[in-house]
């Protein structure tokens, strides 16, 4: 599916450029954004090296395992296909906790690590497994207690109470989070009915 979406976005853009006469801007955007992507990866590099180094220490000392044991009852229900003892659980939990506190740069490396573990669990397959999709659905609408970048913008523009949007944001996220989990279950059930899933 991602294939069609990717091709679709690019082709629609190029066809539109024919009519809007913005071919120059499109060419420029192509190369600028490619450069931007590489810059983004380089800025991710430092974060990944630091946090994965730290997480390796936590893993070797057994801290990660302890953490996943702590929250097992809740998370085990969300991920019935992942054995509770599996290291993926520890990484997923650390990712969710980091997200909760708005530590985006700590959350990403742990999330990636979790995905790698989930892939191993899935026999190294190229396709997304059920727990992967559940995890990303949660991650995408992850609850952030303090949306720092937005609050910074509001301070910049002299809001009367810059952080007053935090509560509505949490409520709104919670709704999206619940919807994501429901949709995830729904699509999973549908796929299973169609028999497209290998046991």
């Amino acid at each position, binding site marked *: 599916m991602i294939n069609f979406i990717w091709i679709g*976005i690019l082709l629609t853009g190029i066809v539109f450029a024919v009519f809007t006469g913005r071919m120059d801007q499109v060419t420029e955007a192509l190369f600028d954004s490619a450069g931007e*992507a590489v810059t983004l990866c380089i800025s991710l590099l430092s974060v990944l090296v630091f946090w994965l180094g730290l997480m390796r220490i936590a893993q070797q*000392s057994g801290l990660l395992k302890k953490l996943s044991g702590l929250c097992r009852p809740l998370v085990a229900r969300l991920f019935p296909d992942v054995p509770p003892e599996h290291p993926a659980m520890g990484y997923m939990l650390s990712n969710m906790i980091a997200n909760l506190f708005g530590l985006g740069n700590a959350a990403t490396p742990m999330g990636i690590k979790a*995905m790698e573990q989930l892939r191993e669990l899935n026999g190294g397959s190229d396709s*997304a497994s059920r727990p992967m999709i559940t995890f990303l659905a949660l991650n995408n*609408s992850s609850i952030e207690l303090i949306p720092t970048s937005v609050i910074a913008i509001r301070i910049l523009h002299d809001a009367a109470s810059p952080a007053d949007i935090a509560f509505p944001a949490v409520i709104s996220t919670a709704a999206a989070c619940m919807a994501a989990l429901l949709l995830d279950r729904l*699509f999973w059930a549908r796929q299973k009915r169609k028999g497209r899933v290998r046991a």
Partner: protein
Amino acid sequence: MSRMAAVSSWMIPVLVFGILVYALIKKVPAYEAFVEGGKEGIRMAVSIIPFLVGMLAAIAVFRASGALDFFVGLLRPVLGWFGVPPEIVPLALVRPLSGNAALGITNDLTAAYGPDSFIGRLAAVLQGSTDTTFYILTVYFGAAGVKRMGYALKVGLLADVVNFIAAVIVVTLVFGRS
């Protein structure tokens, strides 16, 4: 607010402290472990590059060609029927595609309508309540080497729609429509 900010600035040092003290107690060779884990980070960051270049380039072309503006224009009257201010539509559409672009739009809307207006607050809630769906899927699936995403994108985008509706309702209820 200042207490909240203090909590987040203490968070990371405290976390690092805790992990290191625990390693010390358990007699783990922490430095060696750090370096080993860090090496893995390099490999990951490099492996994400092609995924991000492909996705960001596609989105940039879509925006630069004027296609995005066109679809925003199409959606405006539809959302207007539901009492959604048309000014917010570009943000709602860009939010799942590009985090930086969305932050830019949020900044513009806050500047233009004021941080304590309905539009200003709605923009802030939209920006703060969800992550960039395309980016999340690209980075996480890309780094793990998963090429077929299944129904993950569908779930992510539909959840974004729910988030948008919830944001409009919650902001209206909490702050009113001024």
